[in-house]
């Protein structure tokens, strides 16, 4: 049978009625992907239009969304989580990505010694799990251990120390910076690769025109790596609006103190599974997941259709 297929494939590639091998090659991936990813996602979106009344699921239209956005108890939690999530994202964009670009720019200096070592070392935290990272920083920032106050005292800044993770005003910033510390490696690597891909002729031409150093970076290299900056921005966006592990590890499911580090991921977890005395609520959980889906979809579409299309690509 296989021989037959092969022969006719060669002889008349497009007139063969059914090429079973294509189906065989596609089947496992498509089945697993559809069954474990697409159907449950669809089911979750679907569930957000239902409410459980005495064990039976009843269609309620957009009621769950009305509750989430308008009901006193739900809305306060939701808007708080959304606001924190936006701040979480902004801190990543303002700190993680510029530092990543700067490190990449330094690393890409031609014939820099030890570049391989720096690259390897700086990328290491990215590989650790949030659980490890979360606990390590919890210990380091803990007033009990005293490592941070000691280090600050070396630079005469001890008065700045406070239990940052425990204060509502600073906890979100502290957690965001921990996440930045862990993930700086990703923008660094992607930008680094983009910088290395700029052909030498372009840079030499710039030098002939007297454009070197800083102005070369701003005027020549930065425009050329803009597409990569777009990619790291959308990766950061998706990652941040779907984050959970780090906050759960450092601040617990309640995302304390006082909900000040609560983001959409932790809110979804608490809503769906319940915590302490509150029972889990499947349909409201599905509603929050749907909102997260729409936010991520909006961001990705904006990137794909709004930003990526307009970006000029340079062909070398």
């Amino acid at each position, binding site marked *: 049978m296989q021989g037959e297929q092969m022969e006719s494939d060669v002889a008349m590639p497009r007139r063969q009625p059914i090429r079973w091998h294509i189906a065989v090659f596609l089947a496992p991936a498509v089945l697993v992907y559809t069954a474990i990813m697409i159907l449950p996602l669809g089911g979750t979106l679907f569930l957000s239009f239902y409410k459980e009344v005495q064990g039976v699921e009843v269609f309620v239209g957009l009621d769950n969304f009305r509750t989430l956005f308008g009901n006193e108890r739900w809305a306060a939690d939701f808007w708080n989580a959304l606001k924190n999530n936006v701040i979480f994202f902004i801190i990543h964009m303002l700190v993680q990505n510029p530092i990543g670009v700067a490190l990449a720019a330094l690393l890409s200096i*031609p014939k820099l010694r030890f570049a391989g070592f720096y690259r390897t070392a700086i990328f290491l935290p990215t590989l650790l799990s949030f659980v*490890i990272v979360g*606990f390590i920083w919890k210990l380091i920032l803990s007033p009990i251990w005293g490592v941070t106050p000691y280090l600050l005292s070396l630079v005469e800044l001890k008065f700045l120390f406070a239990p940052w993770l425990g204060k509502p005003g600073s906890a979100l910033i502290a957690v965001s910076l921990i996440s930045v510390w862990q993930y700086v490696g990703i923008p660094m690597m992607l930008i*680094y690769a983009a910088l290395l891909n700029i052909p030498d002729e372009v840079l030499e031409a710039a030098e002939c025109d007297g454009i070197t150093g800083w102005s070369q970076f701003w005027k020549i290299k930065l425009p050329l790596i803009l597409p990569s900056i777009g990619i790291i921005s959308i990766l950061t966006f998706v990652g941040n609006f779907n984050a959970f592990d780090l906050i759960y590890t450092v601040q617990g499911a309640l995302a304390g103190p006082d909900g000040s580090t609560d983001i959409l991921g932790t809110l979804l977890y608490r809503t769906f599974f319940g915590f302490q005395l509150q029972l889990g609520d499947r349909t409201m959980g599905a509603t929050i997941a749907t909102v997260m889906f729409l936010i991520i979809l909006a961001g990705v579409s904006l990137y794909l259709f709004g930003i990526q299309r307009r970006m000029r690509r340079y062909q070398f």
Partner: protein
Amino acid sequence: MANARISRTRLTFVHVALIIYTIIALFPVVLTIMNSFKTRNDIFRSPLTPPLPSTFSLTGYNTVLGQGDFIGYFQNSLIVTVASIFCVLLFGAMAAFALSEYRFRGNLLMGLYLALGIMIPIRLGTIGILQEMVALNLVNTLVSLVLVYTAQGLPLAVFILSEFMRTVSDDLKSAGRIDGLSEYAIFFRLVLPLVRPAMATVAVFTMIPIWNDLWFPLILAPGEKTKTVTLGAQTFIGQFVTDWNAVLSALSLAIFPVLVLYVLFSRQLIRGITAGAVK
């Protein structure tokens, strides 16, 4: 010529900046490992000194290995990760081959359908996944995790591998067909060996998020017998918060395999991320 461009002082600044950031990146990890080998008193009295013969202690490791079933957690993580990577690579390569090799109706649509999952995180469907696993009676089994991680890893794998398979020469495949190889033999014997470097990249990309994931083990397999290292460390440390020796040792044990793998594979990993740009 390249070096002449940059003055010596400038270069010194560059190195100082990079060294400072390297210290920031490594300090927390080194601090944890260092203190895990010290006595409780010295952890607090002098956290910044390395363990000396007088302050050396393995109390923490004894507690961890005595109390938590870390060996079991490692086994679970290893089984889940290896099985998932195997499925992702095999299924992903097969689908990538179908999409890149044959022209058929719906090819582009199928490619887009599979690519959806690159941007949309699988976590958003957790509620549906849990329902499904309950219905299939797979809660608290490693199979449920393998299935989820396979689905999670497939989109990117198909995308990367099909890009690579387009570069495999058509002459080679035609020669195979003339020699009477079946389409399956062409895939397994001719194409797969040629895309091995891409498979390695995909394997590393797939491995890291699986090994480190907390969300799905917490939700699908929180039982003692199916705990992964990440979840095991999380619950263990939660119980022993005040026992600093034990916490630091548990963290070091969790870091260790990642560190070893990274030292072994860092070149390949970095080359994968930068897609051949590293010279």
